């Protein structure tokens, strides 16, 4: 069996809020294998971004990893020193942010910002750096790369800026890229172009990706495997085709049901009633119980075990009769 590139084991992250301390991520476990694209879906407030920040080690100050391990290649990330982190970030592990408008520094030129990674991690000459930067700019589809090298972010459109952000993440040739909703802030036509770019990157580059989104269309186009998160837990995971064709968890079912579908033209769109429970009202039972159509008595009190079906796992009481996985 192939060794995973990244394995997240039983990670628990808690947030220090004025009202007290709350677990925002509970016992998150998953792996990312080489050359695999893993999607994370879920509503806002489910812990998708927190998961990616925990892996990058850029959690906000009031969030701490209470327990669990994050193993990347052979390093235990939660135990790294500042110096070790600086070596890993950008060269082996990098991140694409959601907002292309704010993730570029307005007073530095595009070229400087892309080549910054090379400056941190390599000893290339200025000329080589520029060459490499321009070739990566071409790779992500930025036209007139040589002129854009000297341009400032405000001179670029949103789509071009996102390409710059992607170039920044790619240039260090990392083994794993975490893309935190990279298409959410873009309009639909640009979104389609960026999705195409990600598909191309996936085919041509030898690396893995964690792709966070709440757009099933984007996830379907890019990802091999998907984790469905709800209220700080992974409730279901499996291959993208399995998840879309036979979702097991009621939450996944509802999410997929709420995708607009041409066959149901004229009917009102399906929405999941209610919202994700706030941190301070989460109880011991299944967090989805209040919004679930298939709720049974035990849902309110006991958090369900995780059950395994071939490559698909689901955390729900409805599957208690099936074979239980040891967790």
């Amino acid at each position, binding site marked *: 069996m192939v060794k995973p590139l990244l394995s997240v084991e039983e990670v628990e992250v808690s947030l220090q809020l004025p009202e007290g301390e709350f677990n925002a991520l509970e016992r998150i476990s998953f792996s990312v294998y080489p050359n695999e694209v893993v999607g994370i879906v879920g509503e806002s407030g489910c812990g998708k971004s927190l998961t990616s920040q925990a892996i990058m080690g850029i959690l906000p100050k009031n969030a701490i990893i209470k327990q669990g391990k994050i193993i990347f290649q052979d390093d235990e990330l939660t135990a790294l020193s500042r110096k070790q982190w600086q070596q890993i970030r950008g060269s082996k592990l990098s991140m694409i942010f959601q907002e292309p408008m704010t993730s570029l520094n307005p007073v530095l030129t595009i070229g400087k910002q892309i080549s910054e990674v090379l400056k941190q991690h390599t000893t290339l000459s200025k000329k080589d750096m520029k060459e490499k930067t321009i070739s990566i700019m071409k790779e992500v589809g930025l036209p007139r790369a040589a002129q854009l090298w000297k341009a400032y972010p405000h001179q670029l459109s949103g789509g071009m800026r996102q390409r710059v952000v992607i170039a920044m993440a790619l240039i*260090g040739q990392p083994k794993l890229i975490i893309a935190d909703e990279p298409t959410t802030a873009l309009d639909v036509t640009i979104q389609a172009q960026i999705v195409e770019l990600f598909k191309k990157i996936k085919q041509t580059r030898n690396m893995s990706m964690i792709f966070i989104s709440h757009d099933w269309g984007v996830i379907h186009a890019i990802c091999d495997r998907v984790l469905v998160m709800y209220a700080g837990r992974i409730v279901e995971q499996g291959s993208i085709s399995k998840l879309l064709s036979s979702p097991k968890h009621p939450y996944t079912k509802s999410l997929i049901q709420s995708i607009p579908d041409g066959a149901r033209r004229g009917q009102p769109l399906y929405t999941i009633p209610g919202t994700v429970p706030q941190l301070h009202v989460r109880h011991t039972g299944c967090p989805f119980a209040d919004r679930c159509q298939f709720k049974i008595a035990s849902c309110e009190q006991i958090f369900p075990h995780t059950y395994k079906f071939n490559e698909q796992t689901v955390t729900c009481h409805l599957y208690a009769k099936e074979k239980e996985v040891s967790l």
Partner: protein
Amino acid sequence: MNKANRLPFYLGLSFVIVLLSMMFISLFYTPYEPNAIDPNNRLATPSLAHPFGTDNFGRDILSRVMVGTQTAFLIGTTTVMIGLSIGFILGACAGYFGGWLDELLMRFIDAMLAFPGILLAIMLIAVFEAGMKNTIIALGIMSIPAFARVIRSSFIQYKSYDFVKASIAKGAGAFHIILKHIFPNAISPILVVSSLSFSGSILAESGLSYLGLGVQPPDPSWGRMLKEAQPYIESAPWYVIIVGSIITIMVLGFNLLSDGLRDIQDRKA
């Protein structure tokens, strides 16, 4: 609307440019030797030969005012440099790292602010000795809090921006982020404080020299000229008026400049 807003900026800029060119000219040329005494021509009224008149020793006031610009600019630039460099280190560390370091540094700055500025300078000069060097040091220390506060607030603002997080995700260290990412963004507020502190320190120097605590003879200083002119305020009023106006123009010029800069910067934001 647009033009009206920029008027103070251009007015201030032109004042500063006039004084700056006066200083450069005085480096190579003054109408008379600034310290040359002419007993026959004491307290002469302004004329073609002496546009600003002469003082109680018959020295040409125009030449002395011109040489005085050198002192003023020297004091202004050096105090700004001292205030800016120390204020930057304190403000950047406090703002970027936050937490207990921020508390500690800012309480220190608060303590400095609680001290009346000119009193601090007088105390330092009384302990050491009066003169150009100690005046500069005292005024430089006085200007640290203003810089530290403004720089700290910029750093607090910018450190939460995504591009800083993106830079951390690229493997950049704190030093790199402070200098390469946040500092260029904070330049415009720094410029505003610099020009304010520039005029403030020139004014403070004039005040100290007027009291005889600042620049000592033979270094020319506007503040001391004002003091020398005081006894003759009735017989030779132009002496006081000219020196006073020059100080006013300098201070007004830099204040207008910083006001204008702030307006331009606010509109941009």
